[in-house]
């Protein structure tokens, strides 16, 4: 009944996908809220009384009062699919989002590999993968991997300096420079205006997965 919703953050251009969880619970929630609206208040009713006199002889009326509840009248208007969808949208779409649209599962990329590169740039329902963003994602991952290797090379470098193994130091310096330059090819890829370009994405993927070697 309920499709997935897609909306785009104006600031970042990134796409968010909203997945409905349990429409029936939404329906039940609406029904209960409606029922509360029409619950009748209790009415006090005197069911028994007795005329008594106080110490001064003044008569007073002693009453037994009960709260008589009015018949519970629920709003039994059926909760329609439109009601559920409206609640789903109001709960899920953040403030400031002007537009959203419904998508099917096949409109969403099958892989989350470049999840942060998902954009919505054309008139189709399909969620697109932006190659520029994908390159940035890959650069981030590659840098993180490279930095780990540079950290390792720092420890190796200090050890070689202590032992004054100059030849290995020279070799290490060359590999460290290669590590620093490992992102250059990826950065050099021209991705502007490319969306869902599997060839380019594969190039990005290859650069991201390149082997980094600091062995000396």
């Amino acid at each position: 009944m309920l499709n997935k919703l897609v909306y785009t953050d104006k600031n970042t251009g990134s796409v968010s996908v909203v997945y409905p969880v349990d429409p029936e619970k939404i329906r039940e929630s609406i029904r209960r809220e409606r029922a509360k609206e029409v619950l009748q208040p209790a009415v006090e009713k005197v069911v028994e009384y007795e005329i008594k006199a106080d110490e001064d002889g003044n008569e007073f009326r002693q009453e037994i009062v009960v709260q008589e509840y009015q018949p519970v009248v629920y709003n039994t208007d059926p909760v329609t699919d439109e009601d559920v969808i409206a609640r789903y949208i109001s709960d899920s779409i953040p403030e400031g989002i002007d537009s959203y649209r419904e998508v099917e599962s096949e409109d969403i990329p099958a892989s989350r590999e470049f999840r942060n590169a998902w954009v919505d740039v054309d008139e189709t329902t399909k969620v697109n993968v932006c190659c520029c963003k994908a390159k940035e994602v890959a650069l981030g991952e590659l840098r993180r991997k490279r930095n780990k290797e540079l950290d390792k090379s720092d420890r190796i470098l200090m050890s070689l300096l202590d032992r004054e193994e100059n030849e290995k130091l020279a070799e290490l310096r060359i590999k460290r420079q290669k590590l620093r330059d490992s992102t250059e090819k990826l950065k050099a890829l021209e991705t502007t205006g490319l969306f869902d370009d599997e060839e380019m994405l594969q190039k990005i993927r290859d650069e991201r997965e390149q082997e980094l070697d600091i062995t000396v």
Partner: protein
Amino acid sequence: MAFELTNFNNVTSGQSSDFEAKIWAYASDTDTLETVSTAGYFNQMKHALAADNLIYISASDGRAIYYVTSALSADSVTIAELSESPSHSEFSDSNFRIYDNGDNTKKIAFEASSISTGTTRTLTMPDFDITLANMAAQSSSSVNIDGGTIDGVTIGASNKITSLTSFWGLFESDTDSGSFAPIRVTNNIDNTATSAIYVLSGSSTSYANISFENDTSSIFDIGVNPSSHAEADNSFIWNYANQDIRFGTNNTVRAVLSGAGTFQITTVDINGGTVDGITLGTNSAVTEAQIDNININGNTISSTDTDGTIGITPDGSGQIHLNSDTVTFHQDISHSGDTDNKISFGADTQNYLTSGSSRLDISDSGVRLGGANTRVTTVLDEDDMASDSNTSLITQQSLKSFVETEADTILKAGLTWDWGSGTPDIKKSANVSSLTDTATGKVTVNFTSSFADKQYFVGLGVGGNVSDQLRCIETDTRQTGSITITFKYVEDGANVVVNTADTTRDQALIVFTN
């Protein structure tokens, strides 16, 4: 045989000259009247007979007749039965006698002096022979008195009537099919010759009957078909053999007075009049009165025994049914022999007691258990218990629903899912309307019912197979209606990075509690 001269006598021989006619008497011991009456029988007497002579003939078959000579010739005598033709047809009753042929001193005379002047009375003979002195000896006829008056008649004063073959009573028609209301005394109405007296209507089927049978069966019936001695329509039967008296209608016995002294009546319907002043058991107790139904036209069953108990005790496992829309009790209904186990009624109250203690009492204020504490006025079927009543009970269904709902509320919100593919596979949820995939390692959970405030607990469990990663979450945005979470892990024990590996292996459990 033939004419016998010695038997032919001149009856008028020696009479006065005034008696000119000649009367002859002829008696035959051998010839019948038919023989004597044949033509030429008296030819031998042609010299003595003259025209219009009267011949009294007594034949051997006991029959007698008067003839007159009607024609005479030289050779024959013709006779004819006495008619008006003879000129001497009237005689003075003082001159006319008939004497016995054996003893002519025995005579018959007629006396007409009592007849009114100018009046002729006719003595008509029946069509059979009679002997006036012994009418009882007649056996094949009857005396038909048709007209006039019979009164002052004594029947059987000296001797009983030994036989009465048939008596047709007053107003009887000639046949049984007459339309009158007849009385007939007969002994062969049904050809059984068993009834001494039978009073029958003109129709054997349409009118009431009375029959008395002989003393061997001693049946006295009144009814349409009494001879069957059955309880036919509207019958009354006294049966000596059965020693009972029965009344029947519609082929059914309605009442039987038996020889044992019991009087059984199917239905006694005293419709009108008054039956009063009847006392049962004045001298001794009425030990048993078996009555199928009692219809009381008054309103009270009471006793004269002060403080005495009136008992109604059905036999065996019989029950007492009070088939009335309303059964009213003055105060208590108690168990036999256990009087403090009872239901006690008061003004607008009912109290159910055992061992004298109230277990359940009902009043206009509600129902109460144990004689104390809160009364209950109704049972509410409110899933959310919104009435918050302190006098109402709750249905099983609404209690179940409420507990389930509250369980959700206590949990408040929970969600498990699996990033098995590009889209999340929702495993289980509570109070979550949707999951928003915002970015890698970052989701927003939207609640169906919002929290009261933002200070709710957040817990996380993440499954995976990378042992060197310590997982954690960071709550980016916490709202009452949603929360945005970023999954992170500590890389190499130092860097906290976003979990980018949510593509295949991670499951998530997020629990928020109040």
